[in-house]
């Protein structure tokens, strides 16, 4: 009885555990997967995939981040509002970075013949 989370929580009576108790097995599996993905991203950086290298690295990093968010940070078990708050921030960062890149790429060529991030003289 001591070993099972819910039995213990139930034994606590009115002070039942708040939040979802993530099973130990899930936490260990996530930990192992994160370490394996770290190895994978190092290995992938050693292979020449041309312009895909950055994409592959970002894909693996996003997969790792998703695992941390869902299980270590409990988003998988929490109310959706918490994920909405976080994803909103990510969307605004994406908007910020992509528009800044569009802007910088669009003007660099006009300002300097050739190439470069430049400010007008």
């Amino acid at each position, binding site marked *: 009885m001591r070993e099972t989370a819910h039995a*213990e929580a139930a034994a*606590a009576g009115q002070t039942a555990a708040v939040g979802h108790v993530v099973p130990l097995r899930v*936490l260990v599996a996530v930990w192992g997967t994160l370490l394996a993905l*770290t190895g994978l991203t190092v290995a992938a950086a050693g292979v020449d995939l041309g312009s895909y290298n950055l994409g592959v690295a970002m894909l693996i990093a996003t997969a790792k981040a998703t695992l941390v968010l869902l299980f270590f940070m409990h988003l998988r078990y929490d109310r959706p509002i918490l994920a909405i708050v976080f994803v909103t921030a990510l969307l605004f960062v994406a908007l*910020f970075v992509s528009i800044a*890149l569009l802007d910088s790429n669009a003007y660099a060529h006009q300002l300097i013949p050739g190439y470069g*991030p430049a*400010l007008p003289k």
Partner: protein
Amino acid sequence: MAAGTTGEGTVAGARTHRVAHHFDNAEQQFESGKLGMWIFLATEILLFGGLFCAYAVYRSNHPEVFIYAHRFLDKTLGAINTAVLICSSFTMALAVRAAQLGRRRQLVGLLGATVALAACFLGIKGLEYEKKWKEGLLWGAHFHAKLAPAPPALPQTLPPVPAAAGEERSLIPPAAIGPAGLARPGQPAVAEGPEGPPHDVQVFFAVYFLMTGLHGVHVIIGMALLSWMMVRAGRGEFSPGYLTPVDLTGLYWHLVDLIWIFLFPLLYLIR
């Protein structure tokens, strides 16, 4: 650990925490605290988002600087640090679980393990910083590294620049005057290729030190918070019904891990 009939949440000598009057129950109080923390984490994402934006703009405009300069970073130490931080996230997740189950000694031990791993991360980061400092691989005007003996056998001097390279495609603009870190005025264009180190390698190190430095500050704050949680857990302030501070510190710590998960491939694994 004394498990009485009253449950493990109210071990002898423990300060029991009451639900504030404006909350219906412990669960609602816990959920409200978490919402506030996630909003704070959103602002943290926006803070680092600015730096990721600077990284993206510099890298898209000067890919050659990033490809050249990332070789000065120690990939092995970076990978070890990533693993260390992932392990600390794991011990943190276990700590929150221990708090939920009311296992006080386990909670203190796991928080201690998390602090120890965080210190390990900072130690390795310190070794890396020390090496960069000695080699002069610093930001802006402080950059004084001799780039000649670069990893893939680069020549001592820059190749002579053609006098009239009017139509020649160059990576560096002839006169890009910008904020600190951009090209100096009147600098000759450098032809693309492995003939010499690209100009303005210090831009990469400015980005590197700013991003890892801000992350490092977060690690130090996290260590302070974790140590504080250890003291409070030792005093028995937490119970299965009240673990908001532990859980929120955990969320903060996982965010620190999350940011490093992106910093590692972006800075160390450029290709």
